[in-house]
């Protein structure tokens, strides 16, 4: 009996975790997002009032406010585009790397895997800051370019969206490589040889055999990069300029500069719904598809 109880708790532990750290915070954010804002501490009114009898004090004005201003929607769209581009480049660089690691001999493989993981051992902030030093006007890259005579004056490499994409691709690459590696590791290399033997050259073999069989790894890696990049705050803040505003930055400003908690919460809640809902639907459809295709 005791064992059974333990088993039950053990099985449900992920749900406890989800409830405690996802659904309850989400509910709190939702509660704040439908509150009326005011000057004070906290900067919103309670949603249940008991002064003159019971009264529910909620508003959807915060949602109307953020959805009627392109400033907010635009920043969210910018973040989605940024996440798409970054995921694409992570995949472009990560796939060949993961494939190479997965197909190399065991000694080299372990060394390469350690190299992939090593950046995690240093501070994330420090790593992004290092890029700032490399890319700044009198930074290493500009010094090299100047000395080689490729440019006559320092290039403005920092504080634009390209620096942001580069920083994100650099930071999130391991998150793409590791799930891809985990999947490609099990790849039967005879399938590639069989495809070539049946007359398909390297490019066709890639598109007809390697790519379709790597879909689960690609999906896992891409989601792992895409989702956090949408809300990424630090990298655009440190490497980005004023040319583009991103969702994470707006969210931070709304909370801490404007002290508009209900507005910020509405923004956060909308962001989660817009992001999570399609992904959940995609996951359901995808798992059905992969079950049908037995990949």
């Amino acid at each position: 009996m005791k064992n059974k109880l333990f088993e039950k708790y053990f099985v449900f532990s992920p749900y406890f975790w989800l409830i405690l750290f996802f659904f309850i915070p989400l509910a709190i954010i939702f509660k704040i997002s439908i509150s009326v804002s005011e000057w004070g501490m906290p900067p919103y009114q309670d949603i249940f009032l008991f002064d003159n009898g019971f009264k529910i004090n909620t508003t959807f004005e915060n949602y109307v406010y953020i959805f009627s201003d392109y400033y907010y929607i635009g920043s969210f769209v910018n973040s989605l585009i940024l996440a798409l581009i970054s995921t694409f480049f992570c995949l472009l660089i990560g796939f060949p790397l993961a494939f190479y690691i997965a197909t190399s001999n065991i000694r080299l493989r372990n060394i390469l895997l350690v190299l992939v993981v090593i950046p995690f051992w240093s501070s994330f902030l420090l790593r992004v800051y290092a890029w700032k030093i490399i890319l700044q006007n009198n930074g290493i890259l500009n010094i090299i370019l100047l000395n080689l005579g490729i440019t006559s004056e320092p290039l403005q490499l920092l504080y634009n969206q390209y620096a942001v994409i580069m920083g994100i691709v650099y930071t999130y690459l391991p998150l793409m490589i590791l799930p891809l590696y985990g999947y490609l590791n099990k790849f039967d290399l005879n399938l590639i040889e069989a495809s070539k033997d049946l007359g398909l050259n390297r490019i066709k073999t890639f598109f007809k055999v390697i790519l379709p069989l790597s879909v689960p790894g690609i999906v896992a890696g891409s989601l792992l990069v895409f989702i956090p990049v949408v809300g990424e705050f630090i990298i655009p803040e440190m490497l980005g300029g004023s040319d583009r505003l991103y969702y994470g930055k707006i969210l931070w400003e709304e909370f801490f500069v404007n002290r508009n908690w209900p507005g910020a919460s509405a923004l956060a809640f909308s962001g989660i719904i817009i992001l999570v809902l399609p992904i959940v639907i995609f996951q359901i459809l995808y798992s059905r598809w992969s079950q049908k295709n037995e990949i």
Partner: protein
Amino acid sequence: MDNNFLVIENISKSFGDNKVLENINLNISKSEFFGLLGSSGSGKTTLLRILGGFEKPDTGRVILDGTDITNLEPFDRPLNYMFQSYALFPHLNVFNNLAFGIKENFTRKEIEITVRNIAELLSIEHLLNRRIKQLSGGEQQRVALGRCLIKKPKLLLLDEPLAALDKKLRSKTQLELTTLQKKLKITFVFVTHDQEEAMSLSDRMAIMKNGLILECSSPEEIYENPKSLYTANFIGIANIIEIYKKDENFYSDDLGINFKLNKELKNTKTNILLRPEKIKIQSINNLKTSSFNSFSGEILEKSYLGSFTRYEIKIKNMIISVLDQNFNSSSNYNFPKGEKVICSWESESIKVLED
């Protein structure tokens, strides 16, 4: 018949310091069913992979039907390779696995017809919509075979074609494979470590050891007249006896008996092979031992194999294996353990090994 359909010329291959193939030369005829037999590490699979184009030889050439294919990529070679694991595409159903190699150059209709034909040939029409995981080992083997044959290759390479099948299915598939090969007249070259499989499938076979070809001949020739000690031991059961010249005849110290050979020997000392089924076993009451090509010994072990009984007979310092056919069901032919028997053989049955 074209004896130079497939010419393997001076092929050598090393992986690092490890010499896998040393100066391999082979000529294989058109429509021949050719076996490469060797234990693991003999280099047989490497040779097959060189033919398939998956490995490049360090030296030498491969010529197929008059064309040098040594430097061609696998996808440019007019041959196909059947993998030991079958390497069927798990993301495609049987139809699309079969059609994989012809999708490029054929119209939809042609693909449909060609796939149906090949499926019919291999009796797998009912499986066309199945997923690979839903197939049994035997069915997978047919799909793998069909996927290769659909390309009408000049040469089909098979890596351990029957190794993944269970024993009963294996003998059935063996027969089907030879029938199919004779019908299609495609040259088959296959690799196996199983000597029975090699003997039953091959028109000719090559025995490989440590990257060398020791012998290359028909299965009968290799079984009956092996040249080397290694081959004699590798194929079938072998009694190897060392003999040396003594007066008129030859003498074995291990058996303590005289041998009479019907041919002269170059060396004064040599190894001979005596296959266990060539030895006649008789009750000691019937006969006296003659002065040569016979001995009396004691039955040490006995195993009843159905059509045969295998005896291990001890004489002096040696144990000799004898296979005795069970002519009738009476137990007269079965000697009990510990019984003294007389063994004898014809002079022609003694095969002299060269090394």
